[in-house]
């Protein structure tokens, strides 16, 4: 198997999907000749032409709205929102339209679109090139949200998302694009949307995460295993919505402790739902308070590296939080 980074995985998966299925199209700002500001669509324009690789005007609401219409018309559109921070004008089309179409039509219409969204901080992008937006969409039944951060997960879930009959927000952590490398499965490789992935088995506590902080958790868990003999079970949610409560609850029933980590800010984040679920369904198994580690509750990530570091959760903090909870 080839080793690729996350960005290559996105691009190659799009290339494969478009090559195989005429219905797949991509649209967004600069996705055409430019190949995307992160190069995620590089080569598609040359290979598949301007009917299927569409440079849209600078107008996010219409990017999603056009994708919805194209899906009605039988295409399988993959829309790119250039940065997660610019998805907000499209919230109406995503929440009130895409996510409600099947329900409101009593199943007569569906909305098989994918919205690719580069997100996340740690890239000196400041307030508007760093945001995590999962909480914004997390209370939206009808929508699916996936956030894979290994090349294999990216491939398997992006293919699944393209063929999913419902709208999928596909979150790509910008910091993972080049930093995270791994095996890239050849050919048809589809992962189900829904199930979380136990990326590391353990017995002492459960760490639930996704995105870049999941990688921090994995690394910290390895270190703590070596250094302290602490065995953390690390669950990568991968799919945020619908949430795989079962895997989480089962794990906590085994370990008795839960730490949730995410880069999104604390209040109202996905971590709250994970914690609330466990505080209900695994209450009798809990040996310690449920801990959450997340970004500070400030409006967004500041630009200067010193402020940025102070705002985002770090690997060191994740390690410390695991250690502290393990010792509780």
């Amino acid at each position, binding site marked *: 198997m080839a080793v690729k980074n996350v960005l290559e995985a996105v691009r190659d998966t799009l290339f494969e999907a478009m090559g195989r299925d005429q219905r797949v199209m991509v649209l967004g700002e600069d996705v055409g000749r430019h190949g995307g500001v992160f190069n995620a669509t590089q080569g598609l324009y040359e290979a598949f032409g301007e009917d299927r690789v569409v440079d849209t005007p600078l107008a996010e609401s*219409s990017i999603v*709205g056009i994708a919805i219409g*194209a899906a009605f*018309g039988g295409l399988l559109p993959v829309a790119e929102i250039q940065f997660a921070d610019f998805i907000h004008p499209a919230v*109406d089309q995503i929440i*009130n339209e895409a996510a409600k179409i099947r329900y409101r039509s009593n199943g007569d219409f*569906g909305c098989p679109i994918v919205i690719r969204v580069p997100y996340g901080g740690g890239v000196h992008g400041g307030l508007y090139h760093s945001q995590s937006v999962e909480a914004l969409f997390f209370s939206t039944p009808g929508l699916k949200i996936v956030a894979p951060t290994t090349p294999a997960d990216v491939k398997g879930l992006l293919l699944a998302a393209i063929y999913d009959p419902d709208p999928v927000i596909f979150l790509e952590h910008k910091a993972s694009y080049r930093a995270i490398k791994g095996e890239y499965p050849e050919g048809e490789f589809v992962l189900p949307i829904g199930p979380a992935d136990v990326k590391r088995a353990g017995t002492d506590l459960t760490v639930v995460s996704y995105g870049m902080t999941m990688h921090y958790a994995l690394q910290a868990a390895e270190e703590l295993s070596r250094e302290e003999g602490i065995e953390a079970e690390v669950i990568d949610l991968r799919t945020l919505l619908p949430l795989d409560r079962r895997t989480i609850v089962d794990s906590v029933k085994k370990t008795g402790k839960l730490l949730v980590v995410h880069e999104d800010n604390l209040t109202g984040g996905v971590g709250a739902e994970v914690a609330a679920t466990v505080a209900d369904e695994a209450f009798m198994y809990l040996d310690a308070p449920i801990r959450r580690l997340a970004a500070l509750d400030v409006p967004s990530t500041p630009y200067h590296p010193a402020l940025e570091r102070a705002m985002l959760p770090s690997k060191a903090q994740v390690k410390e939080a695991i250690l502290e909870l393990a010792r509780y």
Partner: protein
Amino acid sequence: MKRTTGEPLKKQAALGERIHTRLGLSDDDLLQMYRTMVTARAFDERAFILFTQGKIPFTVTGHGHEGAQVAAAKCLTPGRDWVLPYYRDVGVVLALGMTVRELMLGEFGKAADPSSGGRQMPKHWGCRRLKIVTQSSPVATQLPHACGLAWAMKVRNEEGIVWVSFGDGVASKGDFHEALNFAGIHKLPVVFFCENNYYAISVPFSKQSPVPRVADRAAAYGMPGISVDGNDVFEVYKATREAVQRALAGEGPTLVEARTYRFGPHTSNDDDRRYRSRDEVAQWKEKDPIPRFAAYLKEIGLLDDQEEAAIKAEAEKEVREAAAWAESQPDPDPATVAAHVYAERGPAHGR
């Protein structure tokens, strides 16, 4: 209703220069259109009565818009063209082939309501069979959908066009701009059909628009903008048909504005006396498209007073019966409330 004498046909022949023949509309077309207009009117009147009787909690009517609606719909080919109507377009969906009974199920929100199984408010039609796209309530959101549909038709080389309607207030919204802009850039086969009734609920057109006509906005999108008397069936038909032909010919989108008026309140929750004078309403009622069209039909001998009354009575009977029937149909089963949040099974096949 069948015609009983050949008389009017003769009369019509003598009037070869009449506008409808110039437009290629047959006698049957005219009568069918007239009946649909009258049925639309009767349907909405019945819906309002049902509301007043407390049998349904809400309704919204298209009173006054029927001429524009039926004329526009006449230019469309059901099953070929995608249609994205808005909540006043009872005349459109009737003309396309939704039945009075289907629509009545929607008024009551019954389980068999084809649009939504009782999940949407009345008048939010959707019907895959007729390529009528499921409607939300937030306005303007359907305009980019129309562009996406047109894109799909274009790249898949499918014959047909996309017709999307909306009110004058909608022209204020960002989605209107983004959609017309995209359609203009790519010369998409879309007919943007604005039913300008000069009010967005209470807000008069002058507070929505810095320009006197919605069609004045078309130039900014590199497309023709045509403003017509929306109570004149033939003007609307002509403008819409030309727009459809342009679209079919690959010449791109058109913005058609049908200037009309809503005779009733905004919805059953509204009291329009708070913001419109009775005089103003009365003046517009004189331009009511139904008697006006009837007058034309009479002039060319296609209709007489008796037939006019019969058509009306028939329509009223049909909607009354449909209402009684629909009322007796099963309500949605509460056990289905969580169905259709997600597809029951994948993978996607274009729906």
